[in-house]
């Protein structure tokens, strides 16, 4: 239960950060998630999902309010993908997810190093 609460709070923090213009918030939140959750196999995908959702939700809100079709088409044209509107959408969500994933991995890896050192110390002392 505590884990779910932690993930929910983390997700909210990332979302609020992005909404306030701190688009890199998913990386920091992912870092924290990776550091707090004990299992890397769960922490990293969770951080990635948080990154994805914290960029997806504002994008979806913009779509609901203004419509993203012409914007996505224009961005695709600027990027040289003719009018393939899906490309910028995919790229956007990919960047959000990558920020979360990278943060989660880094946090988790840091946690593993700390845990490893602790085990070594315990072995030496024991």
């Amino acid at each position, binding site marked *: 239960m505590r884990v779910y609460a932690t993930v929910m709070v983390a997700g909210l923090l990332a979302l609020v950060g992005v909404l306030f*213009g701190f688009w890199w918030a998913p990386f920091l939140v992912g870092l924290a998630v990776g550091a707090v959750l004990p299992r890397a196999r769960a922490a990293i995908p969770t951080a990635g999902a948080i990154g994805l959702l914290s960029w997806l939700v504002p994008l979806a809100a*913009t779509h609901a309010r203004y419509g993203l079709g*012409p914007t996505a088409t224009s961005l695709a044209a600027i990027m040289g993908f003719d009018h393939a509107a899906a490309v910028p959408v995919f790229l956007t969500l990919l960047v959000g997810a990558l*920020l979360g994933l990278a943060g989660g991995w880094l946090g988790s890896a840091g946690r593993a190093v700390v845990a490893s050192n602790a085990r070594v110390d315990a072995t030496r002392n024991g």
Partner: protein
Amino acid sequence: MRTSAPPSRRRRARLPFLNLGAAILVSAAVLYVAFFPAAGLPALGAAFNPTTGAWTMAADAQVTDRTMRLSGLQQPVKVVLEQDGTAHITAQTDRDLFLAMGYVHARFRLFQMDLMRRQGAGRLSEIVGKAALDTDRFELELGLLETAQAEWNQLQPGDPSREDLLAYSQGVNDRIDEAIATHQLDAMFTLLGYQPKHWTPIDSLLVKGDMTQTLNFTDTPLVMALLNKQLGADLTSEWFPILPPNVQAPYDPGPYSKPSLSPIGQLPAPQSTMNGDAAQPLYDRLAALPQGLVATGGASNNWAVAPAKSASGGALLAGDPHLHLTLPAIWFQLTMDAPGYHAAGVSIPGTPVVLIGHNEHIAWSLTDAQNQQTFFYVEKEDAAHPGMYFWNSTWTPYKTVSFDIPVLGEATQHVKVRWSVHGPVISERGQTTSVWWGGNIPSQDLSVLLNIDRASNWQEFRDALRGWFSPTHNFVFADDKGNIGLISAGYFPQTRKGQPWLPMPGTGEYDVAGTIPYDDIPQVYDPPAGYIWSANQRQVTKDYPYYIGTASNFFDPGYRADEIRRVLSQPGKLSAADMQALQTDTRDFLASEIVPALLQTLSKSKLSTKESAAMRLLAGWDYRMDVGSSAATVWSVFWSTYLDETFRPWWKSRAVHVDMGEVVDALGQDLETWTLHDAGNRAFSAPGVGSRTAADAQTAAFHKAISAISKRLGNDPSKWSWGRVHTRELENLAQVSGLSYGPRADRGDANTPLAAGDFPSTHGPSWRMVVDWGTHTFQGVYPGGQSENPASSWYTNRVDTWWDGLLKPMLSGDEAQSATGIKTWSLNP
């Protein structure tokens, strides 16, 4: 005794560190591409995040009713935006009007404005990298920045223009601050990864300088020098004469006064005979510059009709300036209402003035006058006087100005520009060459235009234009009292002696000595014929006592002017609808002259079945370059082949390195004249082709043309429609092809009033306006839309109307308030 751990345990102990190292590397890579541009991509996080990245263009595309505070306003201002985006600004003070105008321009065109000021200031490399370095270096050498600074320094505190420019800048900056604070900057800023600096009055003057350069900085003297050397002086003087060989339609037939000179302004001091070898590198350098930096011939129309020939009983005026057609367009449509101003029309974003339009009493439009305002001087130097040039019998030191050009991703470049009395040195390869350019003389053109916006009759209009220097324009006028006028306002520089169409020695004897007095420049007012017209043609007859430029590459060949005069001179009354139809007239006047002669030649020639069918198409043709016309295709390909057939052998045999396309207008006038009046001209008998006449060349060209068309379009002449080969494109200003419009099949060619040269055509009527003072109706349209945001419905919403040749009513501010679908902005102090 210490024992070491087994290898497998050591590996396991190292794993967390390896994992951490990999995580650090991957995180660094992700963060790098998120925060910094890499591999040609923008900073992905900054550019694509959903709240402050390029996606904000979705919200920016929506225009809603708003109430907002604007810093610097004195009184509330109301802005009404029509359903199509036309802005109507109503202010209680003139200062507030210009402040609001700056805000509105920047709200819809900030990126375009930033690009234009960067072009003039030589700062494009800062945002796009070294690809723009040559452009920046050239612009700084040419001196637009120097001129803009000098113009600003001329404006004393309290000068109304100075106050207007300051207010306008404040409005632009209000929008910049707002856009940054609300993450509403145009997406191009986000994608290029920079924020616009605050706007200054000098930026507005730079934008004006850009337009001056586009319209009248020419390389024609260099072309003539090369032709002299390569083609030979004999043919050059014969084929590229000062006066046009063909019959044209000057709007000012005289009589003319005896020649005299008026003083001309001084260049902003920073502050030959050229041999062909020296001309080549400079010519090559200018030829390599992007489109728009060197004027390559104009194409605009305007005319007016007096009440005596008007169906409504009031004066009629029509104008369609032809420019590079871009998205966003060069124009922004608005009305300005304040105690001192009641004007409507189009403005150039970045400048606080209606450039073409009408007020309560007068209407005006303009075309480029095309006279020579660019003169090249070869400076005399020697090794004993380093850093000096010989002028007026004295060794004179050059003045030097230094600039830094920041380059994205590269080291800052340093540029030193030397100035002689003639102007900036723009070539040091071969011979040191400086350029005297009219656009470098500081002038208060914005003050002139503001006075035009307020003028109420011809006298005030003409008096205002007395201060207009460059580029020289044909300003057409019509007022609510039924008067019409046309005046080619601006400098017509005169040299002391020499051949100004060639680079001249810079030793002083050939300097620009003055300009044609204002009362002697081409002009007409209420002429007896009841109509006036200009289409970049030479304005005066051969009797005009001044040199104003040669037939080659300065003035238009005159076919559009001929066609316009032909229509206006028809018996009967003319209406606004007739004006509209003439603006989209596709009748090729040159074709109407040449095709009958060609048919006569072909009637005596042996033709294949296909060629006979093509000939029949021409015989039944009305000379209109319409999309569905196959005869139009036959004519167009024939004419270009005929030119090639006549002149290409000369180019080849004399090893001419000037692009024939650059002088094709002049050659066309020659060919027209010889075809009609001098069929035995020696030009038809080029080395290697034997003795020929015009008819021989026509027949050969016709065979080749039909063969070429067949290869491209098939063997059925009825399917050779013009629209299959001739298209038009509105190019995205940032050169993003996916955001351009077209290419799409379109009518017209370079000779038709609906100008559409080239394949695809990217130039043409950038704004069409028709005014009928009899019915007090004002109509206009430009291709594009008010917004530069491609996600906005106002990006291309006017294109179809324009393409169909239709016009939209130009509502007054009061009329707009009761129009449907408007949005209102209340701007408060």
